[in-house]
């Protein structure tokens, strides 16, 4: 059986490019298949990138990073024009930057090409089958064969689906909808917003160099039965938070929402799975992270590929072992408790409402002053909430 390369990477996004760079450095021959005309042409993120994993891999002095995030604003909307907000500022922070993927991924792919990685663009993998000690990929440009496939095709995980290893479920996915607005702010801001139309999810605003990225991430199963249509939510959201300016682009993309305990199959014979395709996403209510996990899991995959080639293409378990030792799995594990909580309706509608009512009454002066405790207990009763559950949730969330 002749193979086209030691490793074929499916998907030229963050995970795929990182895997390809690393495997090339390990001395393997690598081909990347990307369905877009260029890397990034199909990709969407909020987005703020925590750059630790990227910095470790390539020189970022000429990276198209938009703005360094120096201010975090957290807002809870609770209906009837009421909201709670707080902000945190640190001018010395250098851990995260806003990015726009069409530009960023192209730059990153160019870095890979400079190191000798071969990309085949406009190449859509439409099926995969096992054949004689490897995997055969069917594409619009003919078949490609490899003894090892690194799956980096994002949240829809085509390769795993074609091989019968994955069934996508609405409960394990979020839909992200986004607009890029032609308004510039002069500082790096990340705004996190919760409490929108009772949907399970949250909103974001990130400031780029000359534009703003605004959008929502919402659980697909909460949309299926919702009053509002997904096509309208980002505009309603924009009006709610009062952002104005010309819309430059409207985009949408699924987001994996598995969580540590529900992660899909990460490897099989001749196959290792990275990034969104592997379900690596962390959302703990304050931060959403997928990009750094995609880059790191790609790096681990590139290193594992070398060991797999030297040993045995059928046994890919070393990849999972190496992942367990990386921050990818460590952080996924840590985030699991708060992650699982964010699937509950009470977090998005009931608690914010109670909080707002209590605070509202505390700030209101009408001659009927009561203690915070009295207020809280009464509102909890009114909303039919369970105090024990609330305390447990809080512990789980912080814990």
């Amino acid at each position, binding site marked *: 059986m002749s193979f086209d390369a030691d490793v074929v990477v499916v998907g030229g996004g963050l995970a795929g490019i990182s895997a390809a760079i690393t495997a090339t450095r390990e001395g393997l021959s690598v081909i990347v298949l990307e369905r877009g005309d260029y890397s990034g042409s199909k990709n969407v993120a909020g987005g703020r990138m925590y750059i630790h994993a990227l910095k470790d891999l390539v020189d970022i002095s000429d990276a198209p990073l938009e703005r360094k995030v120096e201010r975090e604003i957290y807002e809870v909307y609770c209906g009837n024009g009421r909201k709670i907000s707080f902000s945190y500022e640190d001018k010395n922070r250098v851990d995260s930057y806003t990015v*726009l993927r069409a530009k960023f991924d192209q730059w990153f792919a160019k870095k890979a090409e400079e190191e000798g990685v071969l990309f085949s663009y406009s190449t859509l993998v439409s099926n995969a089958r096992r054949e004689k000690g490897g995997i055969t990929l069917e594409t619009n440009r003919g078949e490609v064969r490899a003894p090892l496939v690194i799956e980096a095709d994002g949240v829809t995980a085509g390769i795993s689906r074609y091989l019968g290893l994955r069934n996508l479920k609405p409960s394990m996915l979020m*839909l992200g909808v986004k607009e890029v607005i032609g308004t510039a702010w002069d500082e790096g801001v990340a705004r996190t917003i919760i409490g929108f139309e009772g949907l399970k999810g949250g909103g974001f605003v990130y400031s780029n160099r000359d534009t703003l*990225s605004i959008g929502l991430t919402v659980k697909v199963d909460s949309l299926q039965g919702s009053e509002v249509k997904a096509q309208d939510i980002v*505009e309603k959201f924009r009006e709610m938070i009062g952002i104005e300016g010309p819309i430059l682009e*409207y985009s*949408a993309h699924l987001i994996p929402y598995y969580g540590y305990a529900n992660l899909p199959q990460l490897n099989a014979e001749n196959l290792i799975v990275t990034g969104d395709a592997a379900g690596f996403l962390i959302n703990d209510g304050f931060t959403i992270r997928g990009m750094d996990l995609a880059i790191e899991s790609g790096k681990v995959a590139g290193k594992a590929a070398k060991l797999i080639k030297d040993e045995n293409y059928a046994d890919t378990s070393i990849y999972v072992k190496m992942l367990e030792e990386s921050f990818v799995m460590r952080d996924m594990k840590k985030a699991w408790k708060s992650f699982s909580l964010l699937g509950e309706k009470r977090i998005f509608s009931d608690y914010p409402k109670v909080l707002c009512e209590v605070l509202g009454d505390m700030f209101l002066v009408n001659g009927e002053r009561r203690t915070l405790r009295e207020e809280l207990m009464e509102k909890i009763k009114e909303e039919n909430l369970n105090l024990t559950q609330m305390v447990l949730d809080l512990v789980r969330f912080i814990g």
Partner: protein
Amino acid sequence: MVDLIKRLSLNKYTVDKESHIQVNTQICKTCKDKPCVKVCPAGTYEPDEKDGLIVHYERCLECGAALVACPYGALKFRFPYGGISYRYG
């Protein structure tokens, strides 16, 4: 609120000659709540009295939601060969 079609018209598309989305409208004719219409951010699915459902595949943002949007197995989705090219992303 800026209208959906206006927003989609800001995007750059290379529309395939053939639709990348197949729908079994026999099933749609019996489907009352039409969850696909709620879930799709591009308004690709339009309820229709006569045919059950019309698919505007040229609007597709390739988010992937179509793979799970229909609980009744009426939708078959693959990515298009051309399709959207994001300029910001």
